[in-house]
């Protein structure tokens, strides 16, 4: 085990995958010589050569489009979209092509690839460096969608994603790269140095896709969260003293229904938290699933705490961000309902 930040863990995951398998290639805007604007690919070009890690033209559809062709030709591209906010030009290639190559060709061709993208707010990035577009991927049959919230999972899930036979969208909450965000933006940031999930195995290991993880056991209410919001939920549980069971979904598609229903049927209450815009967010799907599968166990309405239905503002970032106060209030209301 070594101590790593999340960005180091992600880099290490790619390093391990590239070292084991020549068919893994890494490219994207600024990822080559410079090593990426968040430095996730730093050192990979030097280690594996310009053929395996290189700068791409600023063309997200070209990045994903070429990666599909490479995957069809036996490679396992792991490409970076500089910010999730910039995936939209590639949305056609991701959803209409990568997601359906296997299905439409009856497995004559396949598309093993990973598309990494920094996601979420909390860095004053404004509406074009803060988005959480996961729900735009969870609606797409053929994709897998992963959101790690700590270095251990980030490395293990990333290696699993690269080794997966199908396309995986890998969303990296950028606010967590260099320090766990406990949800209190006004307090000093504690780094991964002292966090238990900052201990990461060396070399190869995987965290299987499709499995949620209970981050805090509790009896009163279930909180379904992923990414940055896992840390916020834990903080809210602590702040309110409510005995919440906090579940980190880790993989949104395919989702871990067993873990979700087991917990909610136990607690009888459910709060769902995400940073993306509320309406038609992934929380809607979670609420629908819980409402359907746990109907006879529910003792209170399911609450969703999410980003407001506005573009992500710049100056009002902390009014927008679903912080521990808002999550705590939802927990309290749910307990009182």
């Amino acid at each position, binding site marked *: 085990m070594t101590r790593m930040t999340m960005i180091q863990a992600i880099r290490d995951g790619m390093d391990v995958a590239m070292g084991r398998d*020549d*068919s893994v*290639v890494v490219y994207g805007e600024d990822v080559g010589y410079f090593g990426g604007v968040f430095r996730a690919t730093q050192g990979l070009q030097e280690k594996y050569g310009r*053929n*395996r890690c290189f700068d*791409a*033209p600023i*063309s997200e*559809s*070209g990045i994903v*489009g*070429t*990666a*599909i*062709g*490479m995957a*069809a*030709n*036996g*490679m396992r*591209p792991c490409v970076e979209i500089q910010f999730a906010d910039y995936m939209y*030009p590639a949305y*056609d*290639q991701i959803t*209409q*092509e990568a997601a359906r*190559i*296997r*299905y*439409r*060709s*009856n*497995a*004559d*061709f*396949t598309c093993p690839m990973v598309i990494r993208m920094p996601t979420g707010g909390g860095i004053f990035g404004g509406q074009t460096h803060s988005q959480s577009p996961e729900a735009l991927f969870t609606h797409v*049959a*053929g994709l*897998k969608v992963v959101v790690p919230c700590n270095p251990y999972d980030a490395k293990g899930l990333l290696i699993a994603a690269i080794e997966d*036979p*199908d396309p995986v969208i890998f969303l990296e909450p950028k606010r967590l790269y260099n320090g766990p965000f406990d949800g209190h933006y006004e307090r000093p940031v504690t780094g991964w140095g002292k966090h238990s999930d900052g201990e990461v195995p060396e070399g190869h290991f995987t965290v299987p896709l*499709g499995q949620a993880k209970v981050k805090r056991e509790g009896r009163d209410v279930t909180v379904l969260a992923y990414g940055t919001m896992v840390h916020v939920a834990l903080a809210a549980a602590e702040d309110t003293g409510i005995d919440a069971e906090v579940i980190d979904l880790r993989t949104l*598609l*395919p*989702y871990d*229904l*067993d873990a979700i229903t087991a917990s909610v049927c136990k607690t009888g209450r459910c709060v769902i938290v995400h940073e993306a815009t509320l309406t038609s967010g992934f929380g809607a799907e979670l609420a629908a699933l819980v409402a359907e599968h746990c109907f006879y166990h529910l003792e209170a309405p399911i609450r969703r705490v999410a980003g407001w239905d506005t573009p992500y503002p710049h100056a009002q970032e902390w009014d927008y961000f679903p912080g521990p106060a808002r999550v705590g209030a939802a927990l309290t209301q749910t307990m009182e309902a």
Partner: protein
Amino acid sequence: MSSPLSLFVPEPEVRPGGVPDFTNVHIAPAGEVGRPPVDIDPSEIRDMAFSIIRVLNRDGEAAGPWAGLLSDEQLIEGLHHMMLLRALDARMIIAQRQGKTSFYIQHLGEEAVSTAFRKVLKKGDMNFPTYRQAGLLIAEDYPLEAMINQIYANSEDPLKGRQLPTLYSVREQGFFTLSGNLATQFPQAVGWAMASAIKGETNIAAGWIGDGSTAESDFHAALVFASTFKAPVVLNVVNNQWAISTFQGIARGGVGTFAARGLGYGIPSLRVDGNDYLAVHAVGLWAAERARRNLGPTLIEYVTYRAGAHSTSDDPSAYRPKEESAAWPLGDPVIRLKAHLIAKGVWSESRHVQLEAEMLDTVIAAQKAAEANGTMHSDNRPSARDMFEGVYAEMPPHLRRQRQESGV
């Protein structure tokens, strides 16, 4: 004060009711355009994007530096392929009217492009075609029955009924799974070629796109990546003058040709008579050779004419004169190759008629065999189970639940 601006909206010269007149279209005589070495500096051949490489002249003779690459046997084989494709199309259009399939896309007038190009590729190379390049399969003797099984979406459909008719996928024959979304395959072809280069293999790729679809964004993405990484890929633009009801002037805009699009990327860009089997083959070979020698991409514009309807859902008489096809100055690819072979003394009218009948028989036999496996609305067709399979390598729990719910 400036005078008011006004919008320019291009229109074709004739619409239904008008008389097509191509006399003002200048077409370079066969044999006129030179054949540069494949390693020439692209900046020295920019003018080739505005000319047109032709081999067969009006008298059916092969002329100039691009001639002489194919044997008589190869040419007769080529005629074969074009006529087989034409026979298949004719039968499938009828089959669609009979309700045996929901949809069909034909190649009438464009048969030379895909059948001749296929001959410059080798095993292991990969095409990223559009829906109008079934000739790539025909020219490799892919079984007609398998094609018709797909068209009929029957129990033997290799794609299990999941895809629209004619959207084949045949990896073994270097034919990438077809998309219904235009242009997406162009950057994919470039990526496939880049992978070949990264792995140090020798296989090349070919991308395909229509005139209208060059307007799509992915066309640009493909050219940017191909140009930057000198990918071993041939980028084929089939200019058949029409994009459904929209004439090529809308996509082409103010530049003279589609080949010219390549100039802005430093990619050698050639323009070729797409109804001339020999010219298509010769130019394709030149481009493939460039790719194989690691010299990078080539853009080729095939000038041809979509003589038929866009698809079985289309009726072109609503937007262009019926006579336009006959007036089209580059003629018909089958008739031109036939004339060449006759001029060479290796072919005859009677052998031609005989071959036509033979091709029809071949198609009918394949069709019969396919019909034994069912047609679109018959009972022996891909099952609802096939619908749930293959979304992922392994079926995830939520999809398993849905399949159970559906009762299959």
